[in-house]
C-alpha cells in the first residue's frame, strides 16, 4: 500500500509523531480518542496520496496543516451527524499522569488555554509548545502572518491574565 513518497516520509513522520499527536490533541479540544482518529486519518491521507508533501514549507508545517484541516473536517462531520453535541458541555477525561501529584499546574494551564478562542489557542500551541515561528504557525493554520500575529498577541495577553489570576 505504502506509496514511495509515503515510505520516504515514514521515518520523519515517526519522529514527528509525538508532536503531531500533541497538535492533534490541541485541535480536538484535548480529546485523546478523537486526536488519535484524526492522526490516523492524516496518515491515511498521506498513504493514499490525498495529502502530498510538495516541499513548499517544512515537513512539520505541512503535516500540522494537514492535521488541523483533518481535525476541522472531523469536527464538521461530527456536528453534522450529531448536532445535539453542540449543546453538550465538552468534558475532557483527565489523563492518568495528570491525576498524580504535581498535575495541578498542568490542569491550570489546560484551563487557561481553554479560555482562549480557537485560533488564539492554536497559535499559542504552535509557537510555545511546538517552537514554530509566528509565520510558520500562520502557514500551518492557513491564515495570514498578520492575522496570526494578532491572535498570538491577544492569546498571550489573555493567557497571562488567566495564569496570574490563579497563581
Amino acid at each position, binding site marked *: 500500500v505504502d506509496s514511495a513518497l509515503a515510505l520516504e516520509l515514514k521515518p520523519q513522520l515517526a519522529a514527528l509523531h*509525538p508532536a503531531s499527536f500533541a497538535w492533534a490533541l490541541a485541535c480536538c479540544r484535548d480529546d485523546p480518542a478523537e486526536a488519535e482518529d484524526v492522526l490516523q486519518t492524516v496518515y491515511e491521507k498521506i498513504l*493514499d496520496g490525498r495529502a502530498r508533501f510538495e516541499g513548499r514549507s517544512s515537513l512539520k508545517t505541512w503535516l500540522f496543516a494537514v492535521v488541523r484541516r483533518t481535525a476541522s473536517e472531523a469536527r464538521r462531520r461530527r456536528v453534522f451527524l450529531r448536532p445535539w453535541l453542540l449543546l453538550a458541555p465538552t468534558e475532557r477525561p483527565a*489523563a492518568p499522569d495528570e491525576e498524580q501529584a504535581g498535575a495541578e499546574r498542568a490542569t491550570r494551564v489546560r484551563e487557561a488555554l481553554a479560555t482562549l478562542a480557537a485560533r488564539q489557542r492554536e497559535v499559542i500551541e504552535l509557537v510555545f*509548545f511546538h517552537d514554530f515561528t509566528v509565520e510558520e504557525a500562520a502557514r500551518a493554520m492557513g491564515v495570514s502572518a498578520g492575522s496570526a500575529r494578532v491572535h498570538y498577541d491577544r492569546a498571550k495577553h489573555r*493567557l497571562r491574565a488567566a495564569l496570574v489570576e490563579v497563581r
Partner: protein
Amino acid sequence: MSLSDDELRAELRRRSITAPPFQSLWSAAAARVQRRRSPARWIALALLAPAAIVLFLLFGTRRPPPPLPAPPTVQLPLEGLLTLRLDGQLPLDGLARPIAEPTPFAGFDTRGRWP
C-alpha cells in the same frame, strides 16, 4: 505580577502528553487504504452502481400525477341572453341563477320588455 514569554512557554510545556505508538496508527491507516483499494470493493461497486441507476430510473423519477384541470367556466350563451331579454322569462335551462330584474337598456322598458 506578569509572566514573561519564557515563563508562559515553560508553563505550557509542563503538560505531559502520551502519544499512542506511531506504528499502530500507521498500520491501521495502511490497512484501511488497502481495504479501500481492494478489487472486491471495486467489483462490488461495479455491480451495485448500475443496479442503483436502474432502481433510480424505475422508481426515483416517478412523480405524483398532475392535479386535474379546473372545470371550465360556464359561459352564458349569447342566444340564451337574447332570448331572455326578448321574452322576459327566467333564464334558460342550465343557467346558474335566475335573473329577477333584467337590466334595462335602450329599447327595452324596466321589465325588460320591448315597448
